[in-house]
């Protein structure tokens, strides 16, 4: 027999899973610090890769100048011209991403709380009816 109450709970859980997405639900179990640090590192990696690519594109644009003045280029000055903006960019990226992901973590937690409430209801339902869920991935979490 189909149990209406159980079906309703499971539909709600499935809706939350669809809305939130697997990634957000999985990250919901992370500690705040771990969550923010991992995303900060990811953002810094992305920006570093993009910066390197932009440098390569800039070098290709000025390829004629580089070949002509290969010996006379002041490499110490060039090093600072490249790394100072990079350092500033990474600092900026770290600050912005920590603020952004801190806020995102709070918002996601609020959403996930509702999802966990429904999961607990389902768990309670099973324990009250004397049947434990055989497969804990049955809702797709």
């Amino acid at each position, binding site marked *: 027999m189909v149990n209406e109450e159980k079906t309703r709970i499971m539909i709600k859980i499935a809706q939350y899973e669809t809305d939130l997405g697997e990634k957000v639900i999985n990250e919901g179990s992370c500690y705040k610090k771990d969550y923010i640090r991992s995303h900060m590192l990811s*953002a810094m990696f*992305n*920006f570093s*890769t*993009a910066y390197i*690519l*932009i440098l*390569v*594109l800039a070098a*290709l*644009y000025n*390829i*004629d100048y580089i070949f002509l003045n290969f010996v006379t280029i002041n490499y110490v000055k060039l090093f600072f011209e490249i790394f100072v903006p990079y350092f500033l960019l990474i600092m900026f990226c770290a600050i912005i991403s920590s603020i952004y992901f801190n806020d995102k973590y709070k918002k996601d937690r609020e959403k996930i709380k509702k999802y966990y409430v429904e999961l607990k209801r389902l768990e309670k339902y099973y324990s009250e009816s004397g049947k434990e869920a055989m497969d804990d991935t049955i809702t797709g979490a």
Partner: protein
Amino acid sequence: MTQLLVLREQLQKFYQKYTLVLNPLFRFITGYITFYAANRVVGYNPLLNQTWAEVITGCISMLFPVQVLLFLASVFIVLQIAYVSHYLAITTAMMFMVLYFIYIRFVPKHGLVVLAMPVLYALNIPYAMPVLMGLVSTPVSAVPIVTGVAVYYFLLDTVYVIGTSTEDTINLYKLVMQQLASDTQMYVSVFIFTIVTFIVYFIRERKADYAFEIAVVTGSFLNLILFLIVNYLMDININILQLLSGITISCVLVWVIQFFRLPLNYAGAENLQFEDDEYYYYVRAVPKMSISAARKKVKRFNTHHNAEEETGLESNIEQEDMDLKENKGIMPGHDFDFTVSLDKEDLEEIEKEN
């Protein structure tokens, strides 16, 4: 209007009924249009510039989520450019990667707007995007629109430089960048689309009747006026006929999207006032327009107690009806649906009589 609402209702029901089929179909159509547009802009490779290639790539994009389409389209464009210039293909791929790492990686939804802009340009309806984004999104959506415009003009300038050069050197990349930096049409488009997005958003946020519709018309009109003024002042060689037709189609397209998204009945608007402990509220509630499509319904009158027996009897009688139709050749026009259900007592009485 009523007919349109009925059509909307029917289409929504049709979509709900066949979601499993329609979703992949829409993905295929989106993919096909994207690759068709890519071929119209940078169709160099004779192997890829074929209808069957567009269909196959459309089928591939049908199998993946919409986000993957962005990656596939980028690869497709790079392969097209690689046919004529390896250097330009490499630099184009690097630019797409930069775009991904610093922007689309963090806001994947914006990636679709970036992709849509060159596609809409190829279909001559780019004017729809700023109006639509102003209508459904926030002013931040001007950023992906501007990026999409830059991508389109980058491709256009790449085509121009390839067309005018005779040899494949790294200097082509420099020429493309110089051409892009001096492209007045790109700057004009960026400026106008940003203004239109802001204005449309500003109007649709007003608490006025028909704010959405006014926003669509004003946005389209603003597109037209600004492009005409800039064309007159700066002489940027805009085809007036194409501009007019593009803006008209865009306006109609956005209006249709708005109608299917959120039709409001301003005639039935209510102004409510109430209070709680802390505030006094002035609320204006505008009902959504909705209408139920007429539906034929056959009602069955049963007098029964036992559901299982009823089902058994009904199926028997229906089977008998089917048999009768087959044997006696009853025409479909005389197809009466009538069910008789009998109680246990009635059945016993009948059995006794027999």
